[in-house]
């Protein structure tokens, strides 16, 4: 299997082999971060720009460290500090960055499809670090990397995604990759946060948390986006927590070795109780560690062989 793509825009288009290649590459790169000198020269002389038009700490830091550990030069631009504030279009802003001869652009944007638009127009590699409610490929890859590390397989596992499925790019990317790798995926959300037609993606759909937890090997619990509360998808945070929050009591229905995952940032006491978030089933911080390895793998595959 040889990587041939210029960009990483999403997991919908990737084959199971391509996904596995990224995961295998990540596995071999993971130990670099354990060394005293956390750096290899693989991407020396390459320039990677982080262009985050939507707030992010975890993903941006993770990409930046991943690039640095491969010896790439990095710089970071945020929307508030960019000329988008002066009314420049996204494409023009990015074309200017391209003119400075960069090799890759890691982009986060609140509009679905923004990275795709740029990928068509630009020559540097575009890496989607989250576009609207569409895809967040590296997050799903690190989720799956973590599952594979813990369970030694993906095929046949029962993975439940719980929370705001409608607005979640993490959920969509996970659905694509997990189904391609043979997991049994269940999504669980209040009916008002369940996007139409999602059952056609070959997954189980439920609005009953108990059903989503029962027999699960993995629960990937999504963040409730407080800023969406004004759109009244559910009556109150209190009621959401009662019906869709995961606590130790509800967790009894899951398999004994269930993994609790969360893409962060967590609303403690809302979608997860602190006992669950910090408890023995939780691999939330390991996800963060693995995020660097996965992003190193993506950067390496996209840029490593580029002349």
């Amino acid at each position, binding site marked *: 299997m040889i990587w041939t793509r210029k960009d990483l825009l999403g997991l919908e288009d990737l084959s199971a082999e391509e996904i596995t290649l990224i995961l295998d590459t990540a596995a071999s790169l993971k130990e670099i971060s354990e060394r005293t000198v956390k750096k290899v020269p693989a991407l020396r002389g390459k320039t990677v720009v982080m262009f985050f038009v939507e707030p992010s700490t975890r993903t941006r830091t993770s990409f930046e460290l991943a690039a640095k550990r491969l010896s790439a030069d990095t710089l970071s631009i945020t929307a508030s500090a960019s000329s988008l504030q002066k009314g420049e279009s996204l*494409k023009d802003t990015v074309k200017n960055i391209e003119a400075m001869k960069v090799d890759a652009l890691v982009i986060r944007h609140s*509009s*679905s499809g923004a990275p795709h*638009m740029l990928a068509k127009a630009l020559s540097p590699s575009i890496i989607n670090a989250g576009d*609207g409610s*569409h895809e967040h490929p590296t997050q799903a890859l690190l989720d799956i990397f973590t599952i594979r590390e813990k369970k030694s397989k993906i095929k046949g596992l029962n993975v439940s995604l719980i929370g705001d499925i409608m607005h979640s790019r993490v959920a969509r990317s996970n659905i694509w990759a997990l189904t391609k790798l043979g997991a049994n995926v269940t999504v669980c959300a209040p009916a008002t946060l369940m*996007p*139409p*037609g999602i059952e056609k993606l070959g997954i189980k759909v439920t609005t009953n948390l108990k059903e989503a937890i029962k027999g699960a090997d993995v629960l990937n619990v999504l963040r409730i986006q407080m800023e969406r509360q004004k759109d009244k998808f559910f009556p109150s945070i209190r009621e959401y927590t009662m019906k869709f929050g995961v606590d130790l009591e509800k967790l009894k229905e899951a398999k004994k070795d269930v993994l609790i995952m969360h893409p962060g940032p967590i609303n403690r006491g809302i979608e997860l109780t602190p006992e669950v978030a910090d408890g023995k089933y939780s691999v939330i911080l390991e996800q963060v560690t693995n995020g660097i390895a996965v992003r190193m793998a993506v950067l390496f595959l996209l840029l490593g062989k580029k002349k």
Partner: protein
Amino acid sequence: MSILIKSGRVIDPKNKFDAVSDVLVENGKILKIAKSINADAAEKIDAKGMIVAPGLIDMHTHVRQPGREDAEDFHSAQVAAAKGGFSSITAMPNTNPACDNRGIVEYIISEAGKAGIANIFPIGAITRERKGEDLAEIADMKDAGVVAVSDDGCSVKNAQLMRKALEYSKMFNVLVISHCEDLDLSQKGVMNEGLISTVLGLKGMPSISEFSFVQRDIELAQLTGARLHIAHVSTKESVAIIKQAKKIGIDITCETCPHYFTLTDEAVKTFDTNTKVNPPLRTKEDVSAIIEGLKDGTIDVIATDHAPHTEADKDVEFDAAPSGIIGLETALALSIAELIDKKILSYDEVIKKMSFNPSNILGLTQKGSLSQGAAADIVVINPDKKWVFAKEQIASKSKNSPFIGRAFKGCAVITICNGKIVYRI
């Protein structure tokens, strides 16, 4: 100036005429149609193998003047119209300022007339500034020359105000054209709601946001007895509701646009903002229902909803792009490709939906036919001509079409407006 069009297949749906004939035009009027005419015309056109029909009439055009002359203006819209076989277009009132008073109506009529390439008939707003709050001076605009009123781009949200608009318009025999959309249901939506919007993570506009207002406005039309025309029908439910209403004798008409019988929401998967349009591209089932509605006569008119937007405005994130696609230069070719070539409609039926029916609905008695004495608005169609819709050749100032690059068979080769040849390949 006289023109003699020889040996074409003359199709004139109003007069139920379809035969190889000659057409003689003099002083801007149709003088005579006969099997063989020998006259000393200034211009002789050999139309052998061609179709000669009344000039097409687009009852749904956004001309953008005044306000966005960078996207389109009276002149460029007329050039694009003539190229597409249209000798008459309308001017929807969502300009800046909105066409909501006599002054703007008079401005459009006098300014648009200067180009003399295609007729432009203004449509006035239903409410002042299209805000949906107070009725515009509909009677005065009618006197000034509007052919209908519409708040197109928005629905009149307040049902009571819509009722008054219909009652009031009826009194002056003004047609009301309704853009049917419940904004509470479609708010912030950028494409059809369904599997594709779910996959793309784009906010959806459900079909019900359209057809619930189609139902509402039909009920109001029945209540008031006013003439109502439903713009850009895109959903299967709307077609069913309109069909039922017509069956029980409610006086309504409706239109669809070529993109609604050609494309589905699958086209949005490219994130090409030229697929962003309102109402949005729907599903395969909707496309089938639209085609069925065209076939069984539920849908009276094929209109373009020609909505020019500059490349700068369209070449942005999907969420940020304005809705709309241009249609004047592709409407006829798409109707040939999707309806005639697929044996859904005959040439006669397509010409009827693109010429006679719009003239009839808008009350343009001199247009839409080849009757003796009618305005000499004529299109000559070469049904076999192969061509490609290339971006560089678009006559409209704006290039926002999802059909760029598509190969077609059949197009207008000559367009005549008021007895003058305004386009010739």
